[in-house]
């Protein structure tokens, strides 16, 4: 399956989602390719993979950097060699993201629960309706990411996202804003690997994993 962790706004948690799903999928025994398609060179999946290479003997996934139109040509070839390809794109409407959309199976859009972040979903909805002509198999999910641990902001955002955008399915898998995400990524680890374990964060990621891959996570 080819999955894009995408969107057209930064700060939603695309890279965090991409690296954690890649690690979990790899730990579950699947051959995973993590593609860094972010044209900005700092603070992206490649940086994380470099830290992870220094930390661990095996990353549990293969990492590459690929940008631009070449993505549309290369991904279908790579998909024959890997069980899953997870692509981390930059937080804007980029050539790389559009190229990936023409061949992907799933666009996964993490949405920070704020007005600005929910408003841009309308543009993503339009983008998907356009690309569906070229790639009818593409599905799109959005979910709350970096969600508030308390308060009703999550509910307000969910209400906007449910049903308003026909091309994007809202999945009820909120991933809350927890310190463990920052701590784990700083050490080149996935949240499921980090110690001390954060059971709540792990449960949230497991729910997301199950919704995306239609299987429960077992490492």
């Amino acid at each position: 399956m080819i999955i894009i962790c995408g969107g057209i706004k930064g700060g939603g948690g695309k890279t965090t989602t991409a690296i954690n799903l890649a690690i979990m999928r790899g730990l579950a025994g699947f051959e995973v390719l993590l593609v860094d398609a972010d044209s900005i060179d700092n603070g992206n999946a490649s940086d994380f993979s470099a830290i992870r290479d220094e930390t661990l003997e095996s990353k549990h996934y293969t990492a590459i950097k690929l940008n631009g139109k070449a993505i549309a040509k290369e991904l279908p070839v790579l998909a024959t060699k890997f069980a899953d390809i997870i692509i981390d794109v930059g937080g804007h409407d980029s050539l790389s993201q559009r190229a990936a959309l023409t061949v992907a199976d799933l666009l996964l859009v993490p949405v920070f629960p704020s007005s600005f972040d929910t408003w841009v979903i309308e543009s993503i909805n339009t983008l998907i309706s356009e690309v569906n002509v070229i790639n009818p198999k593409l599905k799109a999910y959005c979910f709350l990411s970096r969600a508030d641990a308390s308060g009703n902001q999550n509910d307000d955002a969910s209400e906007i996202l449910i049903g308003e955008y026909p091309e994007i399915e809202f999945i009820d898998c909120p991933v809350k804003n927890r310190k463990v995400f920052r701590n784990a990524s700083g050490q080149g680890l996935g949240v499921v690997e980090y110690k001390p374990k954060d059971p709540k964060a792990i449960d949230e990621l497991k729910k997301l994993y199950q919704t995306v891959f239609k299987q429960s996570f077992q490492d």
Partner: protein
Amino acid sequence: MSTVRKKPTSVKKTTDAFIDQAGSNLLEGEVKKGKTKKSQVPLVIPPQLLKELDEHLESSSIGLSRSNYICQAIREKLDREEKM
């Protein structure tokens, strides 16, 4: 074997067109305006006419370049003559 022109397929054309719209954030049905490549031609112009043109552009607050002014003048003349 005959030599054939390399032609993209219509599917590739559609895909490329979609990808090339990157950054546009368009509403459905809108089309990104492509940049028209302009031609460069040498223009032979009498020095006095060029001086008058520069003085006129400098004194006006329109902020047009020489090229834009000359293009506008050509357009106006063509339109005028077409109406005649």
